[in-house]
């Protein structure tokens, strides 16, 4: 584990947000001017169940330092069951990454409703800070993909 807290390190963070809850929650934190770091870049997906584990691995391969998936709260999925499937998939994927020795705090799932602008901003602040502390993702990055 890194001892210094990587104060100057600017991690790249990919956030997959479902269209109906979390993307709207992100919009709400914008509307309420709730600040979170510019490191976070959001990709809109229809549902958290659209997030293929391959997307997450691809992000890490291309040099992302953290990946977070946000969806509707369990029970509130716009498509009724999508986030339940996502929950199982992500649990198993994260467990596998952990098993392979990848730092746990690089991945996260958070349920954020369209009304939880505050939670969205708070989550992104916390997640960015956690990834910043970990330092750059070296274990899953493919050096060929690095920017020259």
């Amino acid at each position: 584990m890194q001892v210094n807290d990587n104060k100057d390190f600017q991690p790249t963070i990919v956030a997959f947000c479902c269209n109906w809850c979390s993307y709207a929650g992100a919009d709400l934190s914008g509307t309420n001017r709730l600040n979170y770091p510019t490191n976070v870049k959001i990709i809109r997906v229809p549902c958290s169940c659209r997030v293929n584990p391959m997307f997450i691995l691809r992000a890490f391969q291309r040099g992302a330092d953290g990946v977070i998936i946000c969806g509707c709260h369990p029970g509130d999925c716009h498509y009724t069951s999508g986030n339940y499937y996502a929950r199982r998939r992500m649990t198993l994927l994260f467990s596998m990454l952990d098993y392979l020795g990848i730092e746990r705090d690089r991945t996260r799932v958070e349920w954020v409703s369209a009304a939880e602008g505050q939670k969205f901003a708070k989550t992104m602040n916390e997640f960015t800070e956690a990834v910043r502390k970990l330092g750059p993702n070296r274990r899953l990055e493919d050096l060929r993909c690095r920017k020259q």
Partner: protein
Amino acid sequence: MQRIGVFVCHCGTNIAATVDVKAVAEALSHEPGVVVSQDYQYMCSESGQNLVKDAIKEHKLTGIVICSCSPRMHENTFRKAAAAAGLNPYLVEIANVREQCSWIHKDIATATDKAVILGKAAVAKVHLNAPLTSMESPVVKRALVIGGGIAGIQTALDIAEAGFDVDIVEKQPTIGGKMAQIDKTFPTLDCAACILTPKMVEAAQNEKIHIHSFSEVTDVKGFVGNFTVTIKKKARYVDETKCTGCGLCTEKCPMKKVPNEFNMGLDNRTAIYIPFAQAVPKVATIDPNYCLMMKTGKCGVCSKMCSVGAIDYKQQDQLIEEKYGAIVVATGFNPIKLDKFDEFAYSHSPDVVTSLELERLMNAAGPNGGTLLRPSDKKHPHTIVFVQCVGSRCDDEKGKPYCSKICCMYTAKHAMLIREKYPDTEVYVFYIDVRTPGKNFDEFYRRAVEQYNVHYIKGMVGKVTPKSDGQLDVQASDLLANEQLHINADMVVLAAAIEPDKTARPLATMLTTQMDTNDFFTEAHPKLRPVESATAGIFLSGACQGPKDIPETVAQASAAAAKAIGLLCKNSITCNPCVAQSDELMCNGCSSCEKVCPYGAITYTDKEFRMPDRTTAIRRVASVNPAVCQGCGACTVACPSGAMDLKGFSNSQIMAEVDAICK
């Protein structure tokens, strides 16, 4: 070669104050395929839209990226603008640089950098966008209501009122359902038949409503707006079109020892029968299990008696096929069987009855003509014990985990009616909690306690033992007084939990709708879409969705009707074009996608393929019905081979965004 236009909006100062919009437009102009990159003060304004439209025409753009507010705000605006300029509306991508950039960041340099990256991701995605066309799917202007209880009747009446044809399929020989069996209704104590039977007649007389009684749905195909349903009209051995319901046959039938279902088996009916006097349709039905003619070939009395020649011992089940635009499920409930609750001696003593049986015992058309008598010796009962939550809120397997909701109120009603009519009868009610939310409900319950002196005791009945003197020893605990009680009762009434009708689960499979673990139909959204199922075009009415009392059932029935009418009013439905699509060449036919689809949009067919070695092979492949698919994408991840992809959010599009962000 793609020709992409980028349009960066200032949104007044909303974006421009924290994002250097000119720098963003400049940076994005160097992205591959970008031929024009402009900024403007208000892109959503008419002049802003015109700028976009003109650029599309002038530069022959093949895709556009708008860096502006959230797509949830103006995606449609720009899609329409693109369409007006002759560009497919799905070749538009929005980079959200307001809600997700300028409004949350303060530092201009970093916010500008982020806006550029978001713009690049949108450009990368739009490169892979394909033109999509919304399909139009026609709507058959006819509705099917499955179940002819109060829920189904109310839904059918409302839909017919709006001018649409509606069919009711009811498995019993008559519509009416459970409400027809109920004596009085809470909290007003008006007689159920008096308010229900006029509605039954209204349904029968409405020329828009077609009742298929003694019928079942056996197959459902199709999708919203265009269902094809097979209905089995079971043989009733009486020609419905001829029978006048005069009832002469039922009087003369020699086989008089058939347990009467309508009276919960508490008395007998004849082998040819009309369930009750106000039945709709009022048509006789022969029970082939008891009819002497059908069993032995010797009798034929009914046939001889019938002046219109309606009896047909050789009648067969008949399958009819009909098309519908909308389907409303109103399959209702039943009390659970009490064979696993031996402690209450239900199977051992005729004087232990369920609440629904008590309804019949107290009903003027019931076995005792409305006088409450003990079933065993037809004597007047002096002590009656009510047991609440029999099988409701039950942790173990013999019962149900949920609250059946209606028992507290109908027990208060029973207790009150008994005390009113027979003031010399003592009534005890053992309860876990008394739950009376609802308009005038708690007042009603308090009247039972305060005005009618019903003994409400918090506690459970442990055991009911029939004694040699004919009475029942009720052993119970009073939790508030912390003491054990023994009550000598003449009758015990069990508030059995209610459960969805057994036909609901196979029906849900046919309809590809979802059910919870208790077999109640699941609504599309627990708060915001309570009368729709997740499957488009299927609506839920009454207790099939969860325990409900009559007012709630009727309210939901009308709500379901309103939703169905909303659908039937349309000539066609515009489908979301961002739906899943299966690449048949790659599909393994493994069914993973089908299993996770909440809408039943995926079907499998065996198709012939030409293989690379010039042979042909028959393979099982998935296909998606674009009218049913809602575009969640669950199937795309479940698919191991990647044959399933989602239009508008394809694997390659999302990965292009990932790459653009991570670079």
